């Protein structure tokens, strides 16, 4: 029951993030909303892992490991987007 609750929270996070991604005009807010979508998707993955508890483990380690990889990749994408934004917001010199 509590696991399902987290799953539904993850689904809601995807929706809230998607709304922010579409509605906000500024790029930094879009980036934040994009990270919310990512958090929701990861949470859904975590619920799938928790449901698949077996062999004396509290969760299936394969989705958990994939989420760890996903968090790092999402960070790399965010960092690249942030760099682009910093450059777009004000070139100090001729491009």
């Amino acid at each position, binding site marked *: 029951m*509590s*696991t*399902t*609750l*987290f*799953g539904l*929270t*993850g*689904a*809601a*996070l995807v*929706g*809230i*993030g*998607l*709304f*922010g991604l*579409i*509605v906000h*005009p500024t*790029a*930094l*807010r879009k980036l*934040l*909303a994009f*990270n919310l979508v990512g958090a929701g998707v*990861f*949470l*859904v993955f*975590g*619920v799938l*892992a928790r*449901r*698949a*508890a077996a*062999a004396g*483990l509290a969760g299936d*380690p*394969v989705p*958990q*490991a*994939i*989420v*760890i*990889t996903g*968090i*790092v990749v*999402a*960070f790399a994408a965010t960092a*690249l987007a*942030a*760099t*682009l*934004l*910093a*450059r777009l*917001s*004000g070139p*100090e*010199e001729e491009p």
Partner: protein
Amino acid sequence: MTELLALTLALPLLAGALFIVATASTRAALFGFFAFGLFLALAWVALDAVDVALTEAAIGGGATGLLLLRLNGRMRHPVSLGEPAGPRLKIAAGLLAALVTLALGALLLALPEPAPSLAAATVEPLPALGIGNPVTAVLIAYRALDTLLEIVVLLIAVVGLRALGTDRGWGGRPVPWPEGEPSPALVFLARLLIPAGLVFAVYLFWVGADAPGGKFQASTLVAALWLLAIMAGLAPAPCSGGRWTGRALAIGPLAFIVAGTIGIAAAGSFLAWPEPVAKPMIIAVELALAVSIVVALVLLVAGPPERETGR
């Protein structure tokens, strides 16, 4: 009881997400994101995924939040990608978001029972690897290719960051922050936390073989301490064109590929660990990876080079 705990974690998550999207102030949204990250990490603990909780607290909330907060301080004007949304677009976006949420929720409620699981298949060959933590085993052994490509993604982000720097700053250091004299309280905190944090990072790295922890969490901690030292003015930011920076970035993927190639000769396939020396090889590769991850994370958060160096 667990339902109550789940509810006390789920409600702040939803409220935090709504606040991040709805608040007018970008700075408030950024601080909301830090709090959201902490609650999300607690939710991962409640889901019995402590490895993920550590990664989320360190990278998902901490490093991403710091990166965006610094970006907000650096930007001279907000970059707008279009007009503010009108009421019609808002309604359409709300409908779309509700539809996606409902579809995902319905999908979750309709999942098969019992759930398919790879847990048994993961646990069975653990003794041969000398690893007790199944998540670490998945990351470094069963799905090692994912981890290798993940490091490559980090490297690509660093390459993109270098390419986006100004011409004048090519190969130099990022702009320091904050401008001016750091607060004495921050310097004190950095002096206190850095030695303690380094000890804890070594512990996290080592314990990752058998308990929650591992190279990602340890490297993020070291990167965070380095960033703290940069902010307190105790250490310089890495020079993106420096000889040591390049070597540190390359050593992780190179060690991984070399070990993988040894696997072809000794165990029959790329990235297969030859059984008698599996554990020492894994530790060596993880150490090399940790060095690369630390430097990549610090470079990514510190931003593109803008200052010339006397190189």
